[in-house]
């Protein structure tokens, strides 16, 4: 990727632009704060990166993002996304560019972090329902020898399907779980924000790789 900081700026813009939509999704089945919390976190990420100027070390930038999200987002998304970025940072330590193999390792590490922290598995109406299919599609593209933007595009398409899938299932984790079968018909806000992050990275990679 051309510049990790430009990529992060794109992620921040996408989350902030979708603040209201994510909050509305959360109103329907949760506690109406997902967009607000994520936007607050990414505003803080922007400020932190501007102030700390961490350079082009992808691992260092992602670590800073993880720590910032943990200390500013709150709710469940803070620990989950924060842990995801910290784990991805570990997989990208010392790198200034990201190729397909490193991206796959980062995605795998991020998903592992979310599973450890949230004690969730696929099929429980969470961000994992977008991210795990995305990872599968990404690694399949990688096995076929496709480029990073192409692999990301495959991952994004799979995440979109995953978001659709969350409409058909009952929430069993998070505050939406208290709704039981009344959660059917609503898409999961966390899966949706994960999709937005992947879609943004895909657009960024297409334009910059």
């Amino acid at each position, binding site marked *: 990727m051309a510049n990790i900081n430009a990529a992060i700026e794109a992620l921040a813009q996408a989350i902030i632009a979708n603040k209201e939509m994510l909050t509305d999704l959360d109103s329907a089945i949760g*506690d109406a*704060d997902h967009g607000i919390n994520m936007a607050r976190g990414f505003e803080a990420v922007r400020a932190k990166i501007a102030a700390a100027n961490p350079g082009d070390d992808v691992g260092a930038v992602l670590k800073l993002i993880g720590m910032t999200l943990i200390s500013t987002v*709150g709710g469940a998304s803070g*620990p989950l996304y924060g842990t995801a970025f910290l784990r991805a940072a570990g997989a990208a330590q010392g790198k200034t560019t990201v190729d397909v193999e490193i991206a796959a390792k980062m995605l795998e590490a991020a998903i592992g972090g979310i599973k450890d922290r949230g004690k969730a598995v696929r099929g429980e109406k969470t961000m994992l329902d977008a991210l795990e299919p995305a990872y599968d599609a990404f690694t399949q593209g990688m096995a076929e020898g496709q480029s990073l933007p192409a692999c990301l595009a495959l991952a994004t398409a799979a995440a979109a399907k995953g978001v659709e899938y969350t409409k058909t299932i009952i929430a069993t984790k998070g*505050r939406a779980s208290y709704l039981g079968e009344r959660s059917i018909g609503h898409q999961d806000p966390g899966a949706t924000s994960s999709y937005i992050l992947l879609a943004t990275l895909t657009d960024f990679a297409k334009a910059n790789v």
Partner: protein
Amino acid sequence: MKKVINNAEQVVEEMLQGIVLAHPQYVKRVEGFDVIVRANSPVQGKVALVSGGGSGHEPSHGGYVGRGMLDGAVAGAVFTSPTPDQVYEAVKAVDGGKGVLLVIKNYTGDVMNFDMAAEMADADGIKVAKVVVNDDVAVENSTWTTGRRGIAGTVFVHKIAGAKAEKGADLAEVQKVAEKVIANVRSMGMALSPCTVPAAGKPSFVLAENEVEIGMGIHGEPGTHRETIRTADETAEHLLNKILADIAIKAGDEVAVMVNGLGGTPLMELYVVNRKVAAMLAEKNIKTVKTYVGNYMTSLEMAGFSITVLKLDSELKELLLAPADTPALVQF
């Protein structure tokens, strides 16, 4: 949205400033953090209690910081769990050398953030234990939920575990009595009207003029079902029956009762509810030792109430009746 605020982003900060200005004899701020602790913190040689959660539930939890209850309270954004660094600061500020008990309401985010704070404190060598309150019977516990929600019954945990700590008990003993409260406390609520998170600017749900939501959570999360509003007696009976179906309380047993307002309910109506609760318990020959009626665990301006019943044994009774001196709960 019509609210007495200056700026939605500053509500929690300005509230905390207001609390400290109102109650300097009880509390002080941990500078730079959304944490308030007892004015004389850390209390040496006493197990400390820290609770917290999203803001919007006042007087929970800052109102219970004082002798006989909490040592520290952490205020998250409205309806959002505080972050690990904030909880960690509270733990450091109150630890008097005998360890710290974290009292957590059972929500996915709260549990994760407090867990991370406990890991941070452990790494510093501070003894930390935790309990998770899950008193809401509205949603059944099952393998496919994260368990029941923690609501107004949490105040009984603060009261009783706080009294135990004040008597000089060690961390394991304080944790044990907190767990005993959790095992014996049940709550359920209902709402007549929604509330608006300041940063969201609009209500998170809508109820028709004659419609109520039974089992409503304290963040506006939906409950079990909606129905046409009934009389106070019928509604109280429905909630109390759900509670009593969930815990074995027999004739001759002693209980404490809390009829809790969600923020927008007149005290008058809470007393009307309490009349029915008291009558039903008396009819079953269950002895109500102490009753609390008021706003203890609110949900911003939501109209509605919850009922909490705590089954007592001699230890819980003694600790419940022990003195407390806090901004929101004083008893002698």
